[in-house]
């Protein structure tokens, strides 16, 4: 079994023994349950994210970010299913975990926070906290917001806003086509994108929109023919996985020279499938780009690549480990209630600059990057992705204010004990 995998209790206690020996007696090991897919088709993504957390925790423990406390991230395989996420949550709680983290799939995130709210209500004094490292459904920090949830990625609406406003700054773009996957998150993207398109620039025209069933389409050429017929010069898409790579491939095949504005083109697997086909016309919006203005975080990425032979892209792990450690240190406690209050309103510096955990809805406000897929040149594009020879050039960095949105969250807080 891989070292990142949850082990038998025997092996687990051996690990704890080793950590106990190497740290002063009073310090605690704060364990965080990483509940994400670790087997099956999505395992590549989950493993990469878990390794990012391992790397960050190792750094934090070495440099004592959380004082004498040690951080440990342990994988719990949720098989990409909301239901099994709940089973794993129960397992983690049984084993004494007080913190969990999850990203892949808002479905699982909504299920988890719902179960955590119930658990915390039924078991005062044994509260559990959810550090969300990538589920982007805006309702998590709006109507379904909770004191026990902290969102460290920018949510879908924030990304849509920046992406569309950025698109509007290019005066050559006149006609936009929206294509998303036919499920809750895709519907959310379509709704948000249409709204921001309306307000972004008067002469921007929405010439068509489509919803494609999730992961069911093999041949995207009919969609490309439709986009072409609509006369669109730019395509906005929240597609991920093969639904994104196939779209871009089909566009290149049919000679469609449109710009692609995406959310997930930097996600593992997409770059290699895109290859040269996406050069200079595919953009993504995200919280970080290794080819940023100062190459902040390149040392982390280099050592990560050395150790795991994989690209470091999951920068949110840095934000979480940094802020979580700081909260433990500042509150002098590992209790979720105290750590939660310490995290509220916390300002910190992450690899993308100044960030702030907004107290009213627990949404991290942070700068966002727009990257464009470009041939690596050693200067602006120093690092490529997945060995393709192409990487993301920072086209623009938007400060946190560009994506700050009002919230409808009415948060119920536990008593400060």
């Amino acid at each position: 079994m891989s070292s990142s995998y949850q082990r038998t209790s025997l092996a687990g206690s051996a690990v704890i023994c080793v950590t106990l020996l190497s740290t002063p007696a009073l310090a605690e090991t704060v364990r965080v349950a990483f509940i994400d897919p670790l087997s099956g088709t999505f395992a590549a993504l989950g493993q990469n994210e878990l390794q990012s957390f391992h790397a960050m925790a190792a750094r934090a423990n070495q440099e004592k970010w959380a004082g004498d406390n040690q951080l440990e991230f342990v994988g719990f395989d949720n098989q990409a299913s909301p239901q099994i996420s709940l089973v794993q949550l129960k397992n983690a709680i049984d084993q004494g975990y007080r913190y969990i983290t999850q990203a892949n799939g808002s479905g699982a995130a909504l299920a988890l926070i719902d179960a955590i709210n119930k658990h915390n209500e039924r078991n005062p004094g044994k509260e559990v906290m959810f550090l969300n490292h990538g589920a982007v459904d805006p309702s998590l920090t709006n109507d379904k917001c909770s004191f026990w949830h902290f969102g460290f990625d920018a949510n879908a609406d924030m990304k849509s806003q920046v992406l569309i406003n950025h698109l509007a700054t290019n005066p050559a773009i006149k006609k936009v086509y929206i294509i998303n996957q036919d499920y809750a998150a895709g519907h959310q993207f379509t709704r948000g994108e249409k709204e921001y398109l309306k307000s972004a620039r008067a002469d921007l025209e929405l010439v068509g929109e489509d919803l494609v069933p999730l992961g069911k389409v093999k041949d995207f050429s009919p969609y490309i023919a439709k986009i072409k017929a609509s006369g669109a010069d730019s395509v906005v898409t929240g597609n991920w996985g093969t639904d994104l790579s196939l779209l871009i491939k089909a566009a290149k095949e049919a000679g469609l020279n449109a710009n692609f504005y995406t959310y997930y083109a930097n996600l593992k697997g997409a770059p290699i499938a895109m290859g040269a086909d996406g050069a200079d016309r595919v953009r993504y919006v995200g919280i970080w780009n290794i080819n940023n203005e100062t190459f902040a975080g390149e040392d982390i990425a280099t050592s990560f690549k050395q150790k795991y032979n994989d690209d470091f892209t999951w920068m949110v792990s840095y934000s979480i480990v940094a802020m979580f450690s700081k909260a433990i240190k500042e509150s002098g406690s590992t209790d979720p209630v105290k750590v939660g209050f310490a995290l509220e309103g916390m300002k910190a510096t992450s690899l993308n600059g100044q960030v702030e955990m907004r107290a009213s809805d627990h949404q991290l406000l942070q700068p966002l990057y727009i990257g464009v897929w470009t041939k690596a040149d050693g200067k602006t594009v120093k690092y490529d992705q997945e060995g393709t020879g192409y990487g993301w050039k920072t086209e623009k960095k938007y400060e946190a204010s560009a994506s700050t949105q009002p919230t409808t969250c009415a948060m119920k807080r536990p008593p400060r004990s």
Partner: protein
Amino acid sequence: MEFILFTLLNGLSYGLLLFMLSSGLTLIFSMMGVLNFAHASFYMLGAYFAYSISVNLSFWVAFLAAPAIVAGLGAAVERYGLRHVHKYGHAAELLFTFGLSYIVVELVQVTWGRATVQYSIPAELDGPLFTLYGTSFPIYRGFMMLVASLMMLSIYLALTRTRVGLVVQAALTHPSMVEALGHNVPRVFTLVFAGGCGLAALAGVIGGDAFVTEPGMAATVGSIIFVVVVVGGLGSLAGALIASLLIGMVQTFAVSLDYSVLTLLTALGIQETALRGSVLRITVAQMAPMLPYMLLVLVLILRPKGLMGTREG
């Protein structure tokens, strides 16, 4: 005009790819009565072998070698697996291949990793074949159509014009007679199964770089090829061809139809805001990839043999 033309071409080429995928399945079913659930897994194996070979040698070597390797694997599966469960009946054979598909996808992930592999179109086949009104038709799609047509022709010739083909056909209807005449029927079955798997792998070689080579690729085509085979009529090659083209066309044209029941109602002058959030808002375009399954249900209600089928189930 050019939209219709290109949609037609897209539909045709997609339909032909579906035929490449399903012809092997049909062949195996018509000869052996085995509905090979792992067929899409052999398609995936074809793509992955082609990737490995084309990276190390060349695409053209892969084009020939990958189907051969997979056919060999198919022969082994038949010889050491299927033949063994044959005595338990067709349900056991189906379940055996069903289990096999679970194993193959895991082994592929262990061997080639879980992420997408960089299997791309060879340079000489990259680029537009012709450009019409600003829209280009890629060479590779033309190549795909060519290979599919050649494959169709050679299956037809092999079955009707060669000695082996005649034995195969005879073994289909009169196995004991063929055996009595001194032919090794089990070996014929192995040959057929290997051939069918080889055809799936050929589709993988072509489809793998036209689309994306990743561990999920078998699952995305898995059920659609069953639709093709059943709609066409179980065991009928001609039926598979017609069904493939039909499904290719239906799916491609449906994408361009942004109409829903709601639009129809509005056009008829019925304005009902309450309906706007309901099922009726779903457009034909949105349902396009699901239409084959509806077609399946429809065909099975109206004509359970399938379009060209001669026997039922």
